[in-house]
């Protein structure tokens, strides 16, 4: 029906398109950013920047929005634009420092952080960021000083406490380090150890006191590697607390492992299955309660054992996949991508390529997760058996490790598993290591069968792999 023929139809109301002030759009975009609606924020900011391409706040916020979506290089362009038009704005400098850091541009990160501190000496966040970049550059004295300065301004700044914890623990100053380490739960965005609906004021955090027959709840917090590492303290906690029962909350992937250390414990995966308890503690908090020092780190190796039937089954499977006479080297090249330090610790399978020139070695990929397909695309000289396709759980991984000569890996949960089993495991450690690997040494008191190969330059694994290659040739020589 044509318009003329439809006389009964009422004309549409005329909409007046009044321009919305840029400031208002910006505020809405900022709100979207704050609430995690990044695509919407980006859309609005594009409108703003189309109209005002030199608007520094919009460029800066766009940098943050794009960064949070994983587009770091693009984010940097916006941030640099913000600094071009908003010269010497401490907030921009503080944030661009973090961006440079994640892009491995440490010198620029340091310069920006220092400039931010110079411009805003009373801003503890600027000092915190400077502490982080110093820490990542392995400039630990400077990192401690900056964290200290931040805490002088704001004694309750969790980030600065955490920087101190990491540096102190890495230096082996554990008594003070463990105390600072407790601040990890206060860091912005950190998940609470116990969800509020389960937490009760009358059931406090365990501080090492006797519980006299009551139930102690232990929580497998942080990553799988942390849980495996600190699960060694479970028998100590049971004995030291005098608890009548132990309940342990952990990821379902780890339940069977934890069961080995606490056969009678109530192990649960969902909080609504959590039994009544008298006190709780994080597994990662037990070293503090045990007053662990470097020389008293308990290492009752092996404290985990692979299932005997699985060892036999995997022996047969590997026997069919790897010719007789070949030495077997397990490989892991990436950790969980969501880990906040993943870019620092993970690499690619191709990094290991020089190892594949060693004769008489078959490599066994233990990699799981999104990095697994790299095993399909590497056409190097040695056989590579991708077991990632067949590994079901950590129980399989442990049984496979019992059939390998050595495991070479980046710093991920698998190395803790190998260490807990007492298998030979060589770990590639970033230039700025996680605190648990301490500083400078090739061994670790946590795992006697572990050998550490440390980076000499950030984000450069070549020389690490070259050293591993030499070591492997010697280690596996007939």
């Amino acid at each position: 029906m044509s318009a003329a023929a439809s006389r009964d139809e009422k004309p549409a109301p005329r909409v007046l398109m009044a321009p919305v002030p840029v400031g208002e759009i910006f505020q809405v975009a900022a709100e979207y950013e704050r609430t995690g609606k990044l695509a919407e924020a980006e859309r609005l900011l594009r409108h703003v920047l189309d109209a005002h391409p030199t608007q520094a706040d919009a460029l800066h916020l766009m940098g943050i929005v794009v960064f949070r979506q994983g587009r770091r290089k693009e984010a940097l362009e916006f941030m640099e634009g913000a600094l071009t038009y908003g010269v010497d704005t401490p907030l921009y400098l503080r944030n661009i420092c973090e961006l440079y850091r994640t892009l491995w541009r440490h010198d620029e990160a340091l310069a920006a952080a220092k400039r931010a501190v110079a411009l805003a000496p009373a801003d503890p966040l600027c000092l915190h960021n400077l502490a982080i970049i110093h820490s990542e550059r392995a400039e630990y004295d400077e990192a401690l000083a900056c964290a200290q300065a931040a805490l002088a301004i704001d004694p309750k700044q969790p980030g600065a406490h955490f920087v101190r914890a990491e540096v102190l623990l890495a230096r082996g100053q554990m008594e003070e380090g463990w105390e600072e380490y407790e601040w990890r739960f206060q860091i912005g965005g950190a998940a609470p150890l116990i969800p509020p609906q389960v937490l009760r004021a009358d059931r406090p955090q365990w501080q090492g006191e006797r519980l006299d027959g009551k139930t102690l709840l232990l929580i497998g917090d942080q990553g799988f590697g942390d849980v495996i590492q600190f699960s060694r303290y479970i028998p100590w906690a049971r004995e030291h607390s005098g608890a009548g029962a132990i309940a342990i909350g952990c990821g379902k992937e780890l339940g069977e492992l934890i069961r080995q250390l606490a056969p009678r414990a109530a192990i649960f995966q969902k909080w609504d299955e959590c039994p009544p308890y008298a006190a709780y503690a994080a597994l990662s908090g037990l070293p503090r309660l045990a007053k662990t020092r470097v020389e008293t780190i308990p290492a009752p190796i092996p404290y985990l054992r692979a299932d005997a039937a699985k060892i036999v089954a995997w022996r047969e499977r590997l026997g069919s996949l790897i010719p007789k006479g070949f030495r077997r080297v397990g490989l892991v090249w990436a950790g969980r991508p969501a880990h906040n330090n993943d870019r620092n610790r993970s690499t690619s399978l191709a990094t290991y390529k020089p190892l594949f020139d060693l004769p008489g070695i078959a490599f066994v990929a233990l990699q799981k997760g999104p990095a697994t397909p790299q095993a399909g695309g590497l056409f190097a000289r040695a056989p590579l058996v991708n077991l990632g396709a067949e590994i079901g759980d950590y129980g399989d991984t442990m049984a496979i490790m019992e059939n390998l000569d050595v495991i070479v890996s980046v710093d991920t949960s698998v190395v803790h598993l190998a260490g807990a089993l007492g298998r030979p495991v060589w770990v590639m450690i970033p230039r700025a290591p996680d605190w648990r690997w301490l500083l400078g040494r090739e061994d670790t008191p946590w795992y006697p069968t572990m050998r550490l190969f440390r980076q000499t330059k950030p984000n450069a694994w070549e020389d690490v792999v070259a050293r591993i290659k030499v070591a492997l040739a010697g280690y596996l020589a007939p």
Partner: protein
Amino acid sequence: MVPGSLPPAAASRHLVPLVERAIQAHRHGAPETAEKLALEVLELAPDRPGALSVLYEIRKAQGNRPATEALARRLVALDPNNFPATNELALLLLNKGDLAEAEVHARNAVRIAPENAQSHNLMGMILTEAQRPQVAEYHYRRALELAAARDPILLANLAWNLKNQGRMEESRALYEESFAGAPEVRQTLLGWARMEEADRNFDRAAELLDKLEALAPDDVGMKVARAVVLGRQKKPAEAVAVLDALAAGREGARLGPNELLEKGRLLDSLGEYEAAGQAFIEGKKLARELSGQQYLDQHANQMIARLKGFFTQGRLKLLPRAGVRTDVPQPLFILGFPRSGTTLVEQTLTAHPMISAGDELPLINDLTQMMPRMLNSPLTYPEALAELWMGDQRDGLDRLRDNYLARARQMGVVRDEAPWFTDKMPLNETHLGLIALLFPASPVIHVIRHPLDVMVSAISNLFTHGLYCGHALETAATHYVRVMELVEHYRTEMSLKYLPVRYEDMIADQEATVRALLGFVGVDWYEGCLAFHENRRYARTASYAQVTEKLYDRSVGRWRNYRGVLEPAIPILAPIMEKLGYSTE
């Protein structure tokens, strides 16, 4: 009685005299009359076999291949027990290169006439071409038993078959016997010459070609064979001259596709790369035009998508694996794109006393065809593997495995004293998943070579593997990429006993590479593997001339001589070249 219900024979009885007249006319050399009569009959009764037969003969004499084939098909369809028609159809299909269908009709011929020498001869010819020479040999020998006398043609056919099996002495003796019985048969002399050439008796081959030339100075096959022999005698310029002379004698001075490619290869050895490139392009173009074949692009795409869709981690966890037989020799698989160096690797490995040579075994591909029947599945491969979840098909993979092993033994490639035998069917990597299910403990060696060097070989040779991808450079490159992506998929989704071996490493560091290969197979070091060119075994594939020479660097980086010709393939191959670490600099 309703007229439409009359049986055709009765209804067309009145046409019998016409058919008789057509047959008589054809028999007495009056094809025009015969054709007219036959068409008249067929207009009224399209299914009259006599008229169809006459018309078949006429069309065949006219060289009208499509019509000939259509008529033969009609005759066979009308009467599946018509031996002459079945024989003709099988021969037509053999000449056309459709070996799979030719075999169907040849088998029918044997069913119809099990004591007819020709039916067994058919089977012999077709199965020899289909690279199952051992089964073919049985049929040739049966044909010889059934024939009244030692038929020289049959003897020559069997000789060619034995040449393909590398049994040169026996082949030679049969050629001699055949020649003594019928010295004027050109095909015998040509086959014999080619046998001697394959056995590296170049002078003897040249003598036989001289004989053939005296008999038939214009024989095209003789001239091409002459060029090949001259090429192998390191006289490429003379070889090119022979081909040029051949062309000059033709209308339009044109060579055929094979001749052009041979010329290109000769020019390549003379270092005349531009002219060689032109010959390759022209040869391929002509091959496409004459055969009407082209890459089955959509089919390839769909097949690979189905394989990727089926072989996934989740599904593979649910699938059983065949058990490993320890009572019989086991296959070791040499995978690779055609012309990537699989023959070189096979010659190297089979120089080892513990490894016998299977050459290009069509068995894995055959299993994919037979699978629905063997697993009683309404689905085709790979989906038919889902039958393994049924209670009565749990041992399905064992049965498929045993079929492979039994047929390999039947083909004579298994030596009991050697625990391994090779299967180097190119592009078997397409079925890497199936191979790993059937033979989980068998080593899989994947030969990898600079993709552009593979492409040089692809444009300079004819091959039908890979769904005719070799008919054009771009389609060869496309198929290469698709198959490599599929290999990546398998390697991601499955745990495989897989070793990639670089052709370039075989050239640059032969001993280390051969040590790695033997170690991977799990056999002791054997010095003789380094001297694979002394391995007298005749490799049937197009590479045989190269693998009888020592390793030479010239085979690495040949693509640089053909950069211009290869340009269209570079963007297609760029990502995979980067992944494999090959540059175009």
